[in-house]
């Protein structure tokens, strides 16, 4: 809308600058190119960085792609897709991605909102806590992944604390030797690192909740929980939709932490779609199959995001994201 208005103003300015001229409809159309010129850099970047690689990936998925010499690639049609649907390791990696997504999205949102509510109140130490909670978000994934790996390794701080110090366990646990315990470690990192981001979005949303609504509810006799449920939650619903969509997309795209903490192991048990895709591409040079996995994941994420937007639409039918 803003760009349309700008375009309108540009036309008016132009007319004022040249009062003697009669503006033909054709000339006005030429002037309306201005907003598109402003859009052009963004569109070019989007096409070059997103659309073109996506189309290329789809093209590669239809071939036994020879990355070293594309001309030697052999057309395979939907063979790679059929292979993927029959590949138990792909389904396991997709399941692991889904488990990570489910296990991290809800805690990030709930804990993020809780902390945002605590930090909403004015306090001299509030800025400090905001920074502290946001710090993991801006910390490098590589650094924190390696940190978690060291914490949870067989002779790491977690085993020392639980076994040697608190005596809560009879022996050290090999956290990274089993699919489920390793996934717990990876999920814990995801939650810890993501809470600060949810908190910041919720904090901004909470500051936009009209005080008059809170006061009106209070005057009507609503207690704190009732006010939170009936006033705050609906008021921050757009933020909730935004956070959930973004976290679901991010959750299904988990890569760095898995790659660095377990490398998909033991024996691919903790592989997520992206680590499996990476293995196919860079260990086995099977870029056609890797691209197929990427396309399937992209379609899956797109459908899931659309469903979320549809389901989380407000009762008034308003799109909130």
């Amino acid at each position, binding site marked *: 809308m803003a760009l349309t208005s700008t375009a309108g103003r540009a036309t008016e300015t132009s007319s004022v600058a040249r009062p003697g001229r009669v503006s033909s409809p054709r000339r006005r159309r030429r002037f309306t190119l201005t907003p598109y010129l402003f859009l052009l850099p963004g569109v070019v970047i989007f096409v070059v960085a997103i659309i073109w690689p996506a189309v290329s990936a789809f093209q590669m998925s239809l071939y036994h792609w*020879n990355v070293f010499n594309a001309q030697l690639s052999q057309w395979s049609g939907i063979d790679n897709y059929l292979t993927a649907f029959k590949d138990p390791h792909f389904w396991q990696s997709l399941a692991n991605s889904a488990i990570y997504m489910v296990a991290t999205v809800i805690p990030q949102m709930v804990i993020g909102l809780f902390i945002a509510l605590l930090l909403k109140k004015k306090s001299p130490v509030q800025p400090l806590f905001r920074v502290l909670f946001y710090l993991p978000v801006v910390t490098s994934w590589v650094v924190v992944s390696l940190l978690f790996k060291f914490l949870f390794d067989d002779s790491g701080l977690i085993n020392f604390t639980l076994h040697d110090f608190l005596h809560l366990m009879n022996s050290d646990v*090999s956290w990274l030797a089993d699919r489920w315990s390793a996934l717990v470690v990876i999920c814990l990192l995801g939650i810890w690192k993501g809470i600060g981001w949810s908190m910041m979005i919720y904090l901004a949303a909470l500051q936009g909740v009209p005080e008059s609504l809170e006061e009106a509810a209070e005057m009507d006799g609503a207690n704190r929980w009732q006010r939170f449920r009936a006033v705050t939650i609906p008021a921050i619903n757009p933020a909730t939709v935004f956070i959930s969509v973004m976290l679901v997309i991010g959750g299904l795209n988990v890569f760095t932490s898995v790659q660095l903490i377990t490398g998909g192991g*033991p*024996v691919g048990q903790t592989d997520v779609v992206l680590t499996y895709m990476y293995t196919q591409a860079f260990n*086995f040079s099977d870029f056609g199959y890797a691209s197929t996995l990427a396309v399937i994941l992209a379609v899956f994420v797109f459908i899931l995001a659309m469903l979320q937007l549809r389901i989380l639409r407000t009762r008034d039918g308003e799109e909130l994201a």
Partner: protein
Amino acid sequence: MKRSSKLGLAVVTAATISLVAAGCAASTTGSGTGTKASPVTVTFWGSYGNGGNSTQQDALNKTLIPAFEKANPGITIKYTDIAYDSLLQKLTTSAAGGQLPDLVRADLGWVPQFAANGVLVPLSGSMSDYKTLAAKDYAGNVSTNLYKGKYYGLPLDTNTRVLITDQAALAKAGVTAPPATFADLQTMATKLKGTGVSLFADSGLGAWNVSPWIWSGGGDLTNPDETKATGFLNSATNVQTIQMLVDWYKAGLIPNLITGNKGATGTSDGLPKTKYATIFDGPWMSGIWTGQYPKFQPTYSPIPAGSGGSISVVGGEDIVLTASSTHQAAAEKFIRFTQTSAFQIAMAKTGQMTVEPSLADQQAQLAPYYKVYSDQLKTAKSRIASPNQSKIDAVLTTTLTPAFLGKTTVQAALDSAASQIDALLAGN
């Protein structure tokens, strides 16, 4: 060694390198070789500096390359160091983008894969003196460059795995000498039970890890032509060998590092800390321990012998020329330079083992443990020369791990592995 002697040795080494480099310069003529009038720059990628090792890079950049350039006016060698873990990815993406360097120091396992995809020049066809150069090297290393009847590289440096033991752990097992046979290991296994010391540790179940056991046990991975694994990998001999490892694993004498626990203590820490009694590893471990565990004194000895003898696996790097190179003649000159005794010994001083058996004695004078590696290399075998080597490793790991975890039998695991590897070999 006195300071003056060291200085003298350095001068002699530098002079020898210069002379040899000059010799290489004289041996080749032709267009594109680089002259003063039309200089060329040959790009060279490798991972000499992996793990922050500046010694090898320094030897290359400050001594060897300048000597070569001085002897070959008009040729500049531009070496780029890339971390080993990123090198394959970098080479793959660069190949896709047509941005490969002229020369690559490639892990010998990658050569068939790149050769199969037309990325490399078959040196056995382009270098008239290839046979002469290759004849000086260990046959096992040369064979890693073979793909479909052509040789695509020359060995640059080599390594293998030998048995490394911790004396304190041996004492706990009540023995004084490292185990020389499978039977000795079995004896140690009995004595180490309940001591908290693992008999043996390794970080995986790929071909690099299990091949020494299989070959020393008297078995094989495939038929001699490397076209079939069934009937070889899943032989009764191999079942017996792998079962021995599985039994030790189940008895707690091999840690779950071997089945993929990324949180387990690594072999480089476990051995000096007397958590592990024995490991199989390469000559680079000495450098690691010198820095991290200066008091640790490891014992190097041959791989314990089974019914097949003491057979290890060949490792190392080959130097390969990319098909996209526009300076092939100049690049081939540098390849010849890497095959000289001056280059090989200069790099041996930094921890890179020579590929020439005739230099083994000279190398052993640098560090006594080199002799163990050189002797082991005489019988060491190379892994399956296949563009699908990474997939073969993955097959071995994914099929053998369930056997170690007790989810399947060793026979079933090896049957499955052999069948899958058959399909990969057929796809070569």
